[in-house]
């Protein structure tokens, strides 16, 4: 059986990519190997661990459970679009301060999960944060500092948005980069 390639035109972190791919190419492999965006990781390829989690049209999704062809016309955000070493996103900064990572393998997934949560819900409760973080596995941290990092990030981002809140946030860091 010879199967025709399909055309895919997808926007990733604001950049448009056009490729011709096998229908069975997983979105995770497309991002990592076709586009060279290796920040998104692969852990199980059956949807449980969450390492491959990205934002697909604004919502978190397991990229190992989608085919690249399905992303035609879609907007994808991965960790590479969040911040740079010289300009970390406040969520990345918060993870750094709170020791929300050890080996770093689950970190991109946790960051994108935090992005979805905070962008939809700028003042998430602890329960809401735990519910979001509960969707991904981490084998290193025991999760506690990840939750603390997301909490801190949410506090800082909403403090930065608040126009003239006295003594709000610790450093008034800018929103997004």
């Amino acid at each position: 059986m010879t199967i025709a390639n399909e055309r895919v035109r997808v926007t990733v972190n604001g950049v448009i990519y056009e490729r011709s791919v096998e229908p069975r190419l997983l979105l995770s492999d497309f991002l990592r190997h076709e586009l060279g965006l290796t920040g998104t990781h692969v852990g199980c390829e059956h949807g449980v661990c969450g390492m491959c989690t990205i934002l697909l049209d604004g919502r978190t999704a397991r990229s190992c459970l989608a085919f690249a062809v399905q992303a035609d016309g879609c907007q994808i955000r991965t960790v590479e679009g969040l911040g740079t070493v010289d300009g970390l996103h406040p969520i990345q900064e918060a993870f750094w301060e709170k020791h929300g990572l050890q080996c770093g393998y689950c970190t991109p997934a946790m960051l994108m999960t935090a992005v979805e949560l905070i962008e939809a819900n700028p003042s998430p409760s602890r329960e809401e944060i735990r519910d979001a973080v509960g969707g991904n596995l981490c084998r290193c941290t025991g999760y506690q500092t990840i939750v603390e990092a997301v909490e801190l990030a949410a506090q800082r981002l909403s403090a930065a948005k608040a126009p003239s809140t006295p003594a709000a946030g610790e450093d008034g860091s800018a929103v997004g980069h």
Partner: protein
Amino acid sequence: MTGVENRIPKSRQKEAPRGTYRWIGRSMKRVEDPRLLTGHGSYADDIHLPGMALAAVLRSPHAHARIKSIDTSRAKALPGVILVMTGAEAADKAGPLPCFANPPVKQMCIAVDRVRHVGEPVAAVVAESRYVAEDALELIEVTWEPLPVMADPEEAARAMGDGVLHPDRGDTNIAFRRSFDFGPVDEDFAQADHVIRRKLRWSRSGAQPMETVGAVAEFNPGTGKFTIHANTSMYNYVGWLVAASLGVPAHRLNIVPTLAGGSFGSKIFTHRVMVIAATLARACGRPVKYIEDRIDNITACDAHGCDRIYDVELAIKDGLMTGLKCHVIDDYGAYFQFGVGHHGNALSQITGPYRLRSVRLDLTAVLTNKCQQGAYRGFGSDVANFVLERMVDAAVAKLNDDALQFRRRNFIQPDQFPYLIPTGNMYDSGNYPAVLDKALGLLDYGEWRKRQEEARQSGRYIGIGIATCQERSVFSATEFWMLNEEPGFALTSSPESVSLKMDPTGKVYVALQAPFWGNSPETVATQILAEQLQIDPQDIVVTYSDSDHGLNGTGPGGSRFTVMLAGAVVGAAQQLKQKLIRVAAHMLETDASDLELRDGKVGVTGVPGMERTFAEVALHAHYFRLSMPDDPSLSSGLDAAHVYDHPATTLPAVDRKDLGIFYPIMGHMCHLPVVEVDVETGKVEFLAYVAVHDCGTLVNPMTLAGHVRGGVAQGIGTALYERYHYDSNGQLLTASFMDYLIPTLHELPEEIIVGHVETPSPFTEYGIKGGGEGGRMGAPPAVASAIEDALRPLGVTINVLPLTPKHLRTLIREAQARRPIAAE
């Protein structure tokens, strides 16, 4: 004890703990993090080499079978397939994998005549993509002759003939059978008031890091040299063994480390994956990437955790524990890479924090049709802690004593250090009552006992667990062979090394010999070096030496890395400091003894302004030879290297009644979980969790707490959720993440309160002790204790892990049947 002073090596500590530091003890943000946070960490699957091809491995569906034939013709014919290799073809080029046991058990990277566990590689395919490689796997036709499956270690121990996994070693699956006595065991049991007996079962779980093992290998036909990029460790210790497997001299192999997405011991070697990738690369003439998928890793990682059955007896006289007898059956798996090193490891702290005076270990290790055990956070001492603390709880119950009082009475007291335990190992320092007191305070123990009582009145089952355990650190190489009848390769070195240099602009480079696993080697090296040189951490960069450039370095494992890295950095930094000062003394025209390092400068003590920056000194040192005295020690440049050997280790006695000092940097912990058990469903919920650790002087409290919490999470997984569950046909029923259950945050305590006590080591630099494994070594006994405490009204005793809801519910149902009055 007489002669104690003679047995204990002299301390070679250069940096005594002094309590106030500039950099040590700070919860500094990690140096490693920015690239990890921005998705720019380079893990094994991120490596791309030009012309690289992808490999996949055909996994055996049988637990034990002869390979009668393999037909690879259809697979080879598939478009996009470059190469198909059977085990026999691999064996033509690649020899047996390294094995630390003596006598060794032969393991080939791809099975040759028979398979010995489900998931064992049977053939490998190289193709233009992993997708095509997996298509080709389906076209490989294997015919099998099933052999009797040895899934039960007791049955395997009795098997002969076709049930024997390695007939060339003899007609038995027993890989090791030996008994050891330390101290007056028979006497202690003869004189006991009470003998407590329990049968305990520790089932196998495993590291399951989120990243599997992977390697990208290439062979250069021009130089005859292999280069392997892999998420491995020990490449600067025994990497040359892989060259031996590949049939090349050691200098025709360079191993380059990638970041590892977690290891917890399971990536300490990765020999199989590296040898497969390299063998395929040589055969097909292209770089080959082989990354285990999750099923590969679960079934064939060569790193399953401990799997043991214990029959234990504890002798008690006048309320004090005296003797301990352990009859152990070790369900090892199909190969024997570490021999009984896991049991040697356990003997380093088998008597726990208590003054037990005698130990008998009666050990049988059996080969079975399962993936072999490897190193998993605890390496056998995790089991020893569980066994001992279960016996302590059993003793407390039998004597109708108080759990805290019993422990306090039996503790080694703070004035008894350094302390030698019956096996010969030394505990360097400790204060066990202080750790217990701190933990009880952090938990508000009295308050929880009150709440427990109220809960019992209203029909709820709340329990408080207590585990006071050791967490040894810094293994000695003697552990690998000291229990063997014939030692074999009786190595005694387990060093760590760094090389340092300061460039002409004053920046400092630290080269490590071992990889990043999620531990924080760059941060530790940076903090220690900053302390030594009084330099800004921003001016330090850490690199990782491949095996071509590396010095002798054992790598992370056995909670050794922070201690050993500190020792290596101190040793090298002191040399570098000396030269910096001498060059500066010349530049400042003063005596070296007048100078100190401060804030990135060398200056006259007490005279601000009379100083030179490191950059100025370094520039001078690198380029202005003829302006310096004609002394060979002032040659151009500023660099130093140091090999730091184990700070306190001795050989075992020939008769093995004394194993010497082999794991002396002894940390300690107290874990106090509070659980609620739903007796109808068997579900366990955490209401609180306190973990107090004594890891001596802390380099970075934040990262240590991270290890404690992560370790507790894994320990809870081992205690309640995780099991590699083989059925009687050797089929692995938990072969994916759908059935092998790793805890999410919902299954764990919402908060793990971490406390620290610091009793510095007299032997290590700054008095640092290791703590990377401790969390996982304390949680299983603590959780078992908590559940048993919760179910005390029902009379349930906990002897088996994991305590899955089904298992707990079964125990509860049986207990309720025995005591109908307590049932509803």
